[in-house]
């Protein structure tokens, strides 16, 4: 996959097999997406297929939303979480969620295996903050 836009603040990468859908928020509030899969809704019908992975900027977060996200990352204790989180029991053939954040000179990546089955409070807090930032951009 092509290198992402920098400087990074927070990225969520959903991986299913070799497919990936990635959303990244940069430190200046840029909201970027990149995907190897395509989902399109045309004339009332969904169409699915492969996509050439390329970063595109969808939106820009308001400065207060970026600050709220930074605060949420600090509160989440994300930088203290393990690099890998596996479900309590092995799951055959499930998706992964890869979180990467960069803040206060630190960069950390943590992978949640068994998406939908595995629950890690720090990553759930990040997911909530990420969704809140997207919802805020949606409302503007």
């Amino acid at each position: 996959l092509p290198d992402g836009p920098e400087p990074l603040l927070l990225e969520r990468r959903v991986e299913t097999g070799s497919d990936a859908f990635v959303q990244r928020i940069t430190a200046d509030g840029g909201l970027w997406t990149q995907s190897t899969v395509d989902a399109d809704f045309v004339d009332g019908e969904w169409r699915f297929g492969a996509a050439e992975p390329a970063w595109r900027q969808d939106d820009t977060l308001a400065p207060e939303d970026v600050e709220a996200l930074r605060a949420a990352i600090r509160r989440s204790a994300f930088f203290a979480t393990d690099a890998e989180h596996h479900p309590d029991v092995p799951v055959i053939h499930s998706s992964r969620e890869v979180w990467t954040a960069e803040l206060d000179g630190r960069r950390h990546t943590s992978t949640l295996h068994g998406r939908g089955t595995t629950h890690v409070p720090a990553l759930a807090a990040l997911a909530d903050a990420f969704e809140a930032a997207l919802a805020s951009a949606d409302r503007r």
Partner: protein
Amino acid sequence: MIRTVERKRAPGLAERERPLVAEPPARPPVQPARGAALSAAAVAGLQARAGNAAVSRLLARQPTATAVSPLREAYDKARAERDTFVKSAKRGPQTYDPAKRNADNYYGGFDVEYDPSKEEIGITLRGAVLFLPGITIDDTGRAQAAETSAQTAAAIDKINKMAAIDRPAAALQWQWATAGGPDATDEKDFLDNFKSSVESTWRKQHPFHCTRQYWEDVGATTEIKVEVAKVDAAADKTGAQHMLVNAHKVPKHFVGGDADVSRPAGKAAGAFGNVMNVTSEDVVERHDDMLRRNVSFQHGKGLLAPPSVGTVWRLAKEMPNPKPGATIETAGLTARVQGRDADQRADRYAAVLDHLKQGGGVDPARVKFEDGGEGDRGQLTIGDGKRQTVVAHESGHMFGLDDEYTGAGAYGPGKKTEHTDFAAAAGQTGAMHAASDSVMSGGSKVRPHHYVTFLDALKVVSDIPEWTYGAKQAVNPPSDAGDFPLPPKIDADGNGTAIA
């Protein structure tokens, strides 16, 4: 010392008639009391001292009115027991927990029974199906994923970029009909297709037969019965259902999605503690093509285009050659090649072979050429190229089998699966992670080693450990003379050689 057996056969003779070993010279004559009864042990002892042929002559001199070959006695006894077994009542049903039989396993479960009169092993898989939306619209009007794959994440992104008023209509196709979705019969279709696809994929693939002496004509064909029924809540799953199936609704022609099997309460949860997550499209053939790779060639040349070199190398790494001594069939590759003329197509095929060799050491004997006519394109097809139905694959996990496709870490090409050792103990060696047309990789083919848990379940439910792969065999009574265990063959060093 490792002892070897060499059987020399005269061409055209049936095995029983062949002189298998030469009679050792200078043996003492055999002189048992005339008319004395000969037990099997006595015969064996005589053979060891005097040889097979001498004992045959001796037995031939026994009074015919009273003498019965001890092997004939053993045969008659075994056949009587065999006939009693075949006429006896059905064995089972009983629950089979793969995790209790294979130390590497932690998932799956089914019921097994064996009907001797039908020579049929019945495998029953029961599931409680919970119909769930793939996408919901929350109170703020934003789409949220219930189905957890990258593909649905992309659809969520698409919906949330729409005007809020348009989002419910786009999300509607991610709802089952009972929740307002547009596909009127989708729940019934799901249940019907789940049952038919799993049963048709797995039933009657590889026969078994009994290996107990003189029982070799007792066989077992495998019948699969899938019973899936709707529940309104996860708590409604009964204790007799092996799995809760979370069925997420996705639009027709959806590609991808999450599909997995686990035991949320752990390995100790047993054969009824499984959860299977699938989508509504997983009960029909996949819409993507996992067994084909498209390539292109440089125009006017016999060379692969640069991006296709990477495609071929990646495929080569995913298709390791079988390990030495492996008994499990390894999928081959068909290279359909276009070109200006036959010479250019031959050059391009040679280029494909060369890159398969460089990229992963693929044995050229595994690759077959197919003339694609004129053009600059090519296609590599793994094995039979038939598309997979995902629930047939996931049900393989319920039958106690691991994935065989490739990925990172433990899924690396050539690495052992969680059923590799278990299958090897049953004579099916070489199961590994690889791009393949196997149902537990990317295809639909049920190979013999995928029946290893059925074979084991047959041993358990019949309480007979002597079963193996293959169709049942003819059983012939022993002849009255000469058909005995053979004595050791003495080699030049005086070592005896075991006769298998």
